[in-house]
C-alpha cells in the first residue's frame, strides 16, 4: 500500500512535540507548577473550578502508594498530617522518591511491558533464571538511571561497547518473549513468534504503535506497510537460537550478582595468595614410580601395570567439566585397568566437574569399583587432587590436601587391579581404541605422580598449620557464595540472518528479502557506515532529536501511573485510531521537559505529584460528570483500584509482617495444594515444577517477588487482574468480581493478615483506642463518628457471640473499598 506523504504529517503523533509554553490563566493562586496552567486553562475555558485540595490523610496515602506502592505507616501518616510547615509536602515527596521501595513500585508496571515472568510459557512452562533482571530494573529506578540509558541497556545492552555483565542482564528485556519447548514444536515457527513478540513489545513500550497489525498485511489504519514491518523485524532477527526440543533456548550468560561476584573474587585472590605459601606436592613420599609435568602417552603397556594399592596425585587448573588425568583403560577392547580424572567420561552417574576413578580386577569385563567425588574442581582455580586406592579396602579422594568425606563408591573394591594391554595416558585422554584421543585433559596439568602404594597425606602439607587452616576456612566460605547461574541475555549473530517478508505472516511462506530499516513515517535510522542498522542503532535512534514518539509515550505512561488514565488513554497506541490527547500542549510540554531534563524519570514524578492538579480531592462531581463523564479535564482526582500486588502488600503492611528486603530470587507465598496437579502442569517433561509454599520470610515478601508462572498465575494475583505476562501489557484491566471478595475474606494469607493486624491492636487499651489505631493503620486517618459507632457496635456484638472480634473487624477493614483503592 502506498500512503500519501501527507497522511503521516497530518497525524499529531508523527510530528515532533512542539514547544508550548504554559498558557496564561486568570487565577494564579491555584497554580503550583506548569502542569496546573495547562489544566486550569481548560477549566477556565469550560467554566469549571478545580476541586479543593484533598485532606492530608488522603494525600499521604496517595503519595505513598503512588511512589512506593506501600501505605504509609501510622506514625508517618500522623507526622505528615500534623506537619503544616510550608515544605512538608515536598519533603515527604523527596523522602518517598529516595526510598528503595520507589524502584519496586515503578518496576512492577515496567514488568508488564517487559513480559517479565519466571517461566518460559506455553505447555512446557519451565523456570528460567530471570530474577537478576528484576533486581537490575529495581536498582535502575532507584538510581534514577536516565530513561534513555535505561532503554538502551534493555534493548541492546549486549551491544554497547565494553558492556558490563549488568548491561547484558538488562538486555533480557527482549529475552522474556515466550519460548515453546518440547518434543515437537517447530523451532523456526516459534523463533519467529518470539520476534513478532519483540516487535509488538517494542511498539507498545517505546513507540506507541501497533506494529503487530502489519505482521500479515499492511497496517489498516497507520502508515506502516508490511514490508516496513519486516524491515524492523530484521533488526531483531539476529539473535542466536540454540538447542532443540525441551532444550531450545536463546543466548545465556553465566552470571553472579555483583555482591557475590566481588566476594568470590576477593576470596579467590586471598586463596591464591595463601596457596603460594602452602607446599602442595612438595613433600617426598615413598614409592614414586612415575612423574610427569605435561600431557603424555606411555607406549609401553607393561610399564605402570600396577596391580595392588596405588596413589595418584596431580596439580590441576581447568574449566572443563570432563577430562582424564591418568588412564590405563579401554573398555571396548576389553583392556580395563585403572583411570582417574574429572567428570567420569560422561558416565550417567558421574557428575561433571567432580573427581572420579575406576579400578577393575578384570580387563575383559568390568569387575571392580567406581568412585565419585563430591566437590567440583573445574572452577579454573589451582587444585591439588589425589586418589588413593587401598586394594580390597577403600578408594579415597583428596582435594587441596583435604579428604573428601562424601565419596560415593559403587561396586566391590577389588583386591587386585587387572593388567591392561593399553599404555598409560597422562592427561592425553582416553578412547575405546589403542589411541587416546577423547576426554583429554583441557587446562593446566602438572606434577602428576604415580605411587605404587597408599599414601596417608598425599597433599604432603601440615594439616594443622595456621596457613592451611585459614586456607580451608576460606575454601569453605567460597563454596557458600552464591554460584554463578545461567541467565537469559541478548546476543547478536556475527553476520545478520537473511530476513524475508513473510506472506500473510506465515513463517513457511517467504516473500521478498528485506534489509533492516525504519518506518518511512518516522525519521530515518542513520548510520555512519553503510552496514544495516542493528539493535543498538535502533535503541539510540529512539532517543534522537527529531523522533516524535518516545518521549511522549514515556511521559504519558508516567502520567497514567498517577492519574489512572494517560493524557492519551490508549497508552500503547498513538496511531491514527488511538485516542486523541486530552491536553495536547501539556503532553508536548512534558515530553520536552523530559528530554531537557536528560530523561530524568524521578524529575517527572516529582513534577507531577507537586502539581495542584495532583493534589485535588477525589470526590466525584456529578454536575461536571454530566459534561465530562470520563473526567478528561481532571476536575477531580481519579480514584483507582489498586493493582493486585498493592492489595496484598498493603494487607501484609497493615499486619505488620511485610518484609522490607529488596531483590533476590522469587518466593512462593502459600497457594492451594493441587492447583498445578489438577491441570497437569507438574508433568515430567512439561513444567516439571512443583510449588512448595515458602515458610518464614518468603510468605511476607512484596508481591513483586512472587514466582510468576505464566500458565498458572498465583490466584491472588490473577483474581485482582495481574496479567500473566504472556505478552506485553501496557494497561491492566480492572474488574470487580465476587472472587475478589472471596480472596479478600478467605484466602489464608489475607486471613493471616487480619489475625496479625488484630494482634497489633491488642497493645492498645480501650476498644476505642484499638478502632482508632486500626483506622490509622489501614486508612491513615481516624474514624469519623459514624464509623466509630459502627465499629464499636460490631466489636461488642462479636464479643457477645464469642467470636474473635478484632480479627473479624480487621478482616472487614482490610476489605473496605477505601483500602483497595488509591484515592
Amino acid at each position: 500500500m502506498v500512503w500519501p506523504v501527507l497522511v503521516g504529517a497530518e497525524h499529531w503523533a508523527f510530528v515532533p512535540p512542539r514547544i508550548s509554553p504554559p498558557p496564561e490563566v486568570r487565577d494564579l493562586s491555584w497554580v503550583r507548577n506548569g502542569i496546573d496552567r495547562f489544566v486550569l486553562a481548560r477549566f477556565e475555558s469550560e467554566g469549571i473550578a478545580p476541586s479543593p485540595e484533598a485532606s492530608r490523610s488522603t494525600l499521604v496515602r496517595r503519595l505513598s502508594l503512588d511512589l512506593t506502592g506501600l501505605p504509609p505507616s501510622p506514625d508517618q501518616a500522623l507526622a505528615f498530617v500534623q506537619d503544616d510547615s510550608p515544605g512538608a509536602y515536598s519533603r515527604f515527596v523527596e523522602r518517598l522518591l529516595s526510598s528503595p521501595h520507589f524502584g519496586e513500585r515503578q518496576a512492577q508496571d515496567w514488568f508488564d511491558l517487559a513480559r517479565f515472568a519466571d517461566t518460559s510459557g506455553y505447555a512446557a512452562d519451565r523456570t528460567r533464571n530471570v530474577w537478576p533482571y528484576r533486581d537490575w530494573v529495581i536498582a535502575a529506578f532507584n538510581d534514577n538511571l536516565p530513561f534513555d540509558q535505561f532503554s538502551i541497556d534493555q534493548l541492546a545492552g549486549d551491544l554497547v561497547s565494553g558492556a558490563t555483565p549488568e548491561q547484558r542482564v538488562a538486555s533480557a528485556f527482549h529475552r522474556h518473549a515466550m519460548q515453546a519447548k518440547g518434543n515437537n514444536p517447530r523451532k523456526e515457527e516459534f523463533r519467529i513468534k518470539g520476534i513478532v513478540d519483540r516487535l509488538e513489545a517494542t511498539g507498545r513500550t517505546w513507540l506507541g504503535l501497533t506494529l503487530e497489525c502489519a505482521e500479515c498485511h499492511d497496517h489498516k489504519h497507520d502508515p506502516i506497510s508490511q514490508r516496513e514491518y519486516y524491515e524492523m523485524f530484521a533488526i531483531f532477527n539476529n539473535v542466536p537460537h540454540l538447542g532443540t526440543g525441551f532444550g531450545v533456548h536463546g543466548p545465556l550468560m553465566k552470571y553472579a550478582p555483583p555482591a557475590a561476584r566481588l566476594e568470590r573474587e576477593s576470596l579467590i585472590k586471598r586463596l591464591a595468595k595463601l596457596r603460594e605459601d602452602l607446599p602442595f606436592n612438595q613433600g617426598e613420599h615413598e614409592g614414586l614410580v612415575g612423574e610427569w609435568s605435561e600431557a603424555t602417552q606411555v607406549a609401553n603397556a607393561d610399564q605402570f601395570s600396577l596391580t595392588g594399592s596405588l596413589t595418584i596425585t596431580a596439580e590441576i587448573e581447568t574449566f572443563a567439566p570432563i577430562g582424564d588425568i591418568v588412564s590405563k583403560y579401554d573398555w571396548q577392547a576389553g583392556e580395563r585397568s585403572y583411570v582417574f580424572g574429572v567428570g567420569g567420561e560422561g558416565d550417567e552417574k558421574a557428575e561433571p566437574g567432580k573427581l572420579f576413578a575406576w579400578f577393575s580386577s578384570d580387563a575383559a569385563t568390568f569387575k571392580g569399583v567406581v568412585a565419585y567425588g563430591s566437590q567440583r574442581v573445574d572452577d579454573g582455580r589451582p587444585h591439588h587432587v589425589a586418589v588413593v586406592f587401598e586394594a580390597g579396602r577403600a578408594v579415597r579422594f583428596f582435594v587441596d590436601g583435604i579428604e573428601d568425606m562424601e565419596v560415593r563408591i559403587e561396586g566391590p573394591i577389588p583386591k587386585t587391579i587387572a593388567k591392561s594391554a593399553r599404555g598409560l595416558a597422562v592427561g592425553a585422554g582416553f578412547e575405546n581404541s589403542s589411541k587416546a584421543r577423547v576426554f583429554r585433559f583441557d587446562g593446566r596439568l602438572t606434577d602428576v605422580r604415580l605411587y605404587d602404594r597408599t599414601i596417608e597425606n598425599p597433599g604432603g602439607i601440615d594439616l594443622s598449620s595456621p596457613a592451611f587452616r585459614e586456607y580451608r576456612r576460606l575454601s569453605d566460605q567460597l563454596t557458600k557464595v552464591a554460584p554463578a547461574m545461567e541467565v537469559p541475555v541478548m546476543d547478536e549473530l556475527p553476520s545478520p540472518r537473511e530476513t524475508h517478508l513473510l506472506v500473510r505472516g506465515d513463517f513457511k511462506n517467504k516473500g521478498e528479502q528485506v534489509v533492516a530499516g525504519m518506518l518511512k513515517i518516522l525519521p530515518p535510522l542513520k548510520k555512519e557506515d553503510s552496514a544495516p542498522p542493528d539493535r543498538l542503532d535502533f535503541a539510540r535512534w529512539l532517543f534522537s532529536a527529531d523522533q516524535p514518539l518516545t518521549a511522549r509515550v514515556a511521559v504519558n505512561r508516567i502520567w497514567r501511573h498517577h492519574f489512572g488514565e494517560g493524557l492519551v488513554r490508549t497508552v500503547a497506541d498513538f496511531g491514527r485510531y488511538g485516542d486523541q490527547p486530552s491536553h495536547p500542549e501539556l503532553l508536548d510540554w512534558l515530553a520536552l521537559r523530559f528530554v531537557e531534563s536528560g530523561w530524568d524519570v524521578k524529575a517527572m514524578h516529582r513534577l507531577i505529584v507537586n502539581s495542584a492538579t495532583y493534589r485535588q480531592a477525589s470526590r466525584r462531581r456529578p454536575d461536571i460528570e454530566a459534561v465530562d463523564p470520563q473526567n478528561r479535564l481532571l476536575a477531580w482526582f481519579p480514584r483507582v483500584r489498586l493493582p493486585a500486588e498493592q492489595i496484598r502488600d498493603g494487607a501484609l503492611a497493615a499486619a505488620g509482617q511485610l518484609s522490607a528486603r529488596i531483590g533476590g530470587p522469587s518466593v512462593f507465598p502459600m497457594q492451594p495444594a493441587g492447583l498445578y496437579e489438577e491441570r497437569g502442569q507438574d508433568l515430567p517433561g512439561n513444567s516439571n515444577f512443583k510449588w512448595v509454599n515458602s515458610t518464614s520470610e518468603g510468605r511476607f515478601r512484596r508481591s513483586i517477588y512472587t514466582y510468576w508462572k505464566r500458565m498458572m498465575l498465583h490466584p491472588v494475583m490473577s483474581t485482582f487482574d495481574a496479567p500473566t505476562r504472556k505478552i506485553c501489557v501496557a494497561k491492566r484491566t480492572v474488574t470487580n468480581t465476587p472472587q475478589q471478595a472471596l480472596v479478600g475474606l478467605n484466602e489464608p494469607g489475607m486471613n493471616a493478615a487480619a489475625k496479625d493486624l488484630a494482634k497489633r491492636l491488642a497493645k492498645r487499651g480501650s476498644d476505642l483506642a484499638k478502632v482508632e489505631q486500626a483506622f490509622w493503620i489501614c486508612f491513615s486517618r481516624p474514624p469519623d463518628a459514624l464509623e466509630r459507632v459502627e465499629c464499636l457496635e460490631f466489636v461488642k456484638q462479636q464479643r457477645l457471640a464469642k467470636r474473635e472480634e478484632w480479627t473479624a473487624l480487621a478482616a472487614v477493614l482490610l476489605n473496605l473499598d477505601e483500602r483497595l483503592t488509591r484515592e
Partner: protein
Amino acid sequence: MIPSAIQPDFLADQTRRAFLGRAAGGFGTLALGCLLREQAVAQPMRPHFAPRARRVISLFMSGGPSHVDTFDPKPLLTKLDGQPMPAGIIKNHEFAMIKTKEPKVKGSPWKFRPHGQSGTEISELFPHVAGVADELAVVRSLHSDTFNHDPAVTFMNTGNVRFGWPSLGAWASYGLGTDNSDLPAYIVLASGTNRQPLLDSYWGAGFLPQEHQGVSLRTQGDPVLYLKNPDGVSHEARRDQVDLLGALNRRRYELVNDPAILARIKQYELAYRMQTAVPELADIASEPQTVREAYGAELGRVSFANNCLLARRLSESGVRFVQLYEKGWDSHGEIAKQHTERCRAVDRPIAALIADLKIRGLLDETLVIWGGEFGRTPMAQGDGSGYGRDHHPHGFTVWMAGGGIRPGTVHGATDDFGYFAERDKVHVHDLNATILHCLGMDHERFTHRHQGRDFRLTDVHGKVVHNLLA
C-alpha cells in the same frame, strides 16, 4: 435410540419430582432461582438476531481424538492397512512425532455401523452416543491451522494461535451476559488422564474485561477457590462482616461519590450468596441416584460423568457457557487401549447429558459441541499392537447438537484416507462463526475495540455453515 438407563418417562418422572421438591421449598436450584429473581440480569449487548441457543455446553476432548476411529469411517484404511501412505498425499507434510519416511496406513480396529433414522455411521467406541445419533450434526470436514497441542487448543477456543485473544466462552459472556448473576457466565470443569497440561489461557478473556474469563470449578475441595470461610468463621459471623462492610463502604460512598463502591458492596453480597449457592449446585448428591447412575456419576470422584451431570445443573441454572475438558486423548502409542479407556469415560455420560437435556426441554436452547483440537493421522505412529496415531489438523470431526442445529445430519467429508477435509470444508473460523450464529451473534459485527482496532473471534475470516442450522 436413547439408552435404556435413561428412558424418557423415567427422567420425566425425576424432573417432576425435582420440580415438586423445588416447589416444596427444597434445595439448591430453589435458592438459585430466588437469587435469580432478586438480581437484575446484566445484558451487556443485544443479540443481532433471535438466538437459537441460549447457552453452550462444550465437551472438549483435550489431546485430539482420532476421527477415523470414531465418527469418520474409512474402509480404505482397513483395506490398505500396513501399506505405505501414498507419497502424493503426505508430500511436504511434517508431523509432530512421526519421523519415518514412509508412514504406514492403519485401519481402524473398531467397526462402524449406521445408527438411528439418520443412519449416521459411528464406531463401536461410542455405543451410547450412537443411541442419540439422530440428535447430532456431525461435521467430518473440519480443518485447523496448527498441529501442536497448546496452539491448536488456543486456536479452537480463541481463533488465534497466539495467546492473548479472548476465548469463545468469554465472548459469549461478554456479548450475552449471564442469565444468573449469582454465578459466573463461563464455567470450566476438567477431568481425565494427565497427558497434556490445561492452560488458563484456553478459557481466558484476552483483551476483554477479565470478568468474562472462564471460572474453573474445582472438582475436589472448594468448588471455587477460597469459597469456604476460614476456620472458626461461621456463616452468621460472615453475615455480620458483610453487613459492616456494606455500612462502612456506603459511608465512604457518601463522601467520595464513586459508584464503584456500590458495585463493590454488591460483589461482597454476591460472594456471600455464592458461598451457599455454589456448593449446593456443585453437589451432585442432590440428584436422584437413578439420574446419577444414568450418567455413570459417582459421588466424590473426579470424572467426566460427574462433570456432565454438573454441566446440566449449571446450564439449567443459567450459566451461559459450560466447558468440560476431558484430558488424555493424545494417543501417540497404545491408541487401542487409551481410546477405549477415554471413550468408556465419556460415551455414556454424553448420551445421558443429551437425553437429559432433551427430556427437560433444554436441548432446544442448549448447544452441545463435541470435539478436540485436531484429529489423528490415518497412518500409524509406531508399529505392533502398541501403535498410536499422530496429531492431524488437516481433516477431522466435531459434532454439535441441540440449540439451532439440524439434528441427524452429516456435513462434509474427508478424502478416502481421512487425510484432507475435501467436501464442504469447514475451517475452525467457520465453526466459531456458526456457534456465534446459534447464539444470535453475527460474527462479523460482534467486535471489541482494543489497541485502536475492532477485534472479533473470527479475525477477518469465517463463514456461517448454514447447512448445519435447523
